[in-house]
């Protein structure tokens, strides 16, 4: 499996883990041995039929793959200027999002390496719940780092992780969100690397994580491409996905990279609006630098200090982004745009009302983007949207946003 399709070959840095000038491995020396070990084991595992068979078996019998593609006719008609909207239903995976695809692979790798303990970071909790699930399934000890602010926003997922046997550690440093949870997880890893594997949640971080997580999420696009061809007889005009760290987006984009006629759109969290400074639109408003072990676009000030991000979606509230997205942006293969909180919540509401599907607030950014693309491309367009997760975890946030509940959680009169 090549790192990139032919259209990306020009200017590509051949060093492992590099996407043009992005990626790499900017970490303390103490972690290098573990990253080398992970890279080595992963390289062997991806060529090992027994490993691939075990992963495929789990994805089929435990996760529920392949996930279907659902035609969202009423949403397309009423909310997207008549464009044909197709939803890739990652929300129907066990644990409710695409995250399970990644963690099952990484948990199998952990066992292959011979480690007994996994750690992970989580923002909204989707990756934490998925990791706790895989750890329970495979009998691994599990610690999840979660920003204190996010444990409050996503209390239901904290309960889920603890029911599954994981220990959830609220992180009280910095902005108390995903960025700081990653810092704490990396500190744990430096300290316990002999016994512990870090199950990274997205296509960011030091090599090999951006490649490893991308390959494990690639199945989303591989399935969707076949399903759309079967359903419509042609490729979609555009593929839309939300981008925080960017794993669901790279997962669905990757199978289409060589299809030059398929436009790829990543929708970042615009928060209160990019012009307000309170957002998480890393590619739109960031600059290249190094955060969490890789060079990529990030929100930083003129001193190179990370700027805290803001989004109604805890899962997109991250000031960095995966390095491959930075490269896709620079070479023009994918387009990244911000969607602010209000537009995302309006798309959330519309999908609930037109299709009977409560989407994750993360995925609602992609749905809002699809509405925008519908307006631009018109009723003849087919737009494939990655519905990366379901909205159960976000019901509390949404109910408050729409005034169904007051701030204390009581049903509003």
């Amino acid at each position, binding site marked *: 499996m090549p790192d990139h399709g032919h259209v990306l070959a020009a200017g590509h840095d051949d060093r492992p883990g590099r996407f043009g000038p992005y990626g790499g491995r900017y970490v303390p020396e103490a972690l290098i041995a573990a990253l080398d070990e992970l890279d080595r084991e992963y390289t062997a595992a991806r060529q090992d039929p027994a490993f691939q068979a075990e992963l495929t078996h789990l994805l089929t019998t435990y996760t529920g793959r392949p996930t279907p593609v659902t035609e969202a006719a009423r949403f397309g008609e009423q909310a997207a200027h008549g464009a044909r909207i197709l939803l890739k239903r990652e929300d129907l995976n066990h644990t409710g999002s695409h995250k399970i695809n990644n963690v099952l692979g990484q948990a199998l790798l952990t066992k292959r390496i011979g480690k007994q303990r996994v750690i992970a970071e989580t923002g909204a909790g989707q990756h934490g719940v998925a990791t706790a699930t895989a750890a329970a399934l495979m009998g691994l000890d599990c610690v999840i780092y979660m920003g204190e602010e996010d444990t409050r926003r996503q209390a239901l997922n904290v309960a889920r992780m603890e029911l599954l046997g994981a220990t959830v550690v609220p992180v009280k440093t910095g902005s108390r969100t995903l960025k700081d949870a990653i810092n704490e997880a990396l500190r744990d890893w430096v300290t316990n690397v002999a016994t512990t594997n870090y199950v990274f949640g997205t296509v960011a971080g030091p090599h090999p994580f951006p490649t490893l997580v991308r390959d494990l999420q690639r199945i989303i696009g591989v399935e969707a491409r076949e399903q759309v061809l079967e359903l419509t007889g042609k490729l979609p005009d555009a593929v839309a996905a939300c981008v925080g760290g960017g794993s669901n987006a790279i997962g669905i984009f990757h199978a289409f990279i060589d299809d030059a006629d398929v436009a790829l759109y990543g929708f970042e969290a615009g928060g209160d609006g990019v012009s307000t400074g309170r957002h998480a639109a890393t590619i739109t408003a960031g600059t290249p630098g190094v*955060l969490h072990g890789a060079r990529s676009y990030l929100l930083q000030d003129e001193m190179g200090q990370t700027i805290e991000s803001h989004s109604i979606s805890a899962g997109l509230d991250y000031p960095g982004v995966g390095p491959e997205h930075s490269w896709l942006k620079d070479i023009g293969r994918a387009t990244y745009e911000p969607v602010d909180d209000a537009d995302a919540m309006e798309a959330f509401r519309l999908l609930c009302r037109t299709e009977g599907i409560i989407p994750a607030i993360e995925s609602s950014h992609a749905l809002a983007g699809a509405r925008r693309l519908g307006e631009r491309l018109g009723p003849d367009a087919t737009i494939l949207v990655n519905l990366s997760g379901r909205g159960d975890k976000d019901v509390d946030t949404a109910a408050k946003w729409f005034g169904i509940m007051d701030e204390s959680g009581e049903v509003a009169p």
Partner: protein
Amino acid sequence: MSTTVAFEKARAEGRSALVGYLPAGYPSVDGSIAALTAMIEAGVDIVEVGLPYSDPLIDGPVIQAAVDAALRAGTTTKDVLRVVEAVAATGAPAVVMSYWNPLDRYGAAAFARDLAAAGGSGVITPDLTPDADDSWIPAAREHGLDTVFLVAPSSTPERIAMTTAACRGFVYATSVMGVTGTREQVGDAAAGLVERTKATTELPVAVGLGVSTAAQAAEIAAYADGVVAGSAFVRRLLDAADPAAGVAAVAELAADLAGGVRTR
């Protein structure tokens, strides 16, 4: 004075060199200058001036608390250079300890130029290994700066050799797998790591992570060329009732540790 001269001076006295860390800008820019200067007067041979960073992933809670406060108070990279200039004027070598992104943002070449102009001796880069980036080493060489990289207990022989070949000034050996912070024990791995490191280089090897007492300094001084203390100094500043008391407490610890490296 260069770090090389400081290590040679300590060796001539039959002891290890004492290296002390504090972040620039805590409790204020001038306050950090006062504390670092007092540290030198009390017997520290080389100072590490920390460049405050928002995401210090190999630092424990003590150092993070101080650098967060320094950033909230508005400490800039220019302020760090001013601290270096002031402490270098005392005659002791001042090296900057910095995560990579603030230097990358400043520009590797520009930072090397400005640090050298401020009288700085070099830079320790905790999250930049020699093979991670092509820009830093040439910039540092051009301005005669030390490039101090870390070796860890988990480092393979090949990586130790690669790392020490890229080091100038000295090599920083992390005594334990973990983050900065004082510890009851500095770790059994340190002596073995120093031995493995010394097999690849003539450079002095300093041991850091966890040193807070004279006894620990003496223990490490028995096999290493330098002993680094950081969190223990920062803790003195965090616990002090006022800045003057913090400076006095830092000086007291420095004198204590300086005694430790002389009792090998």
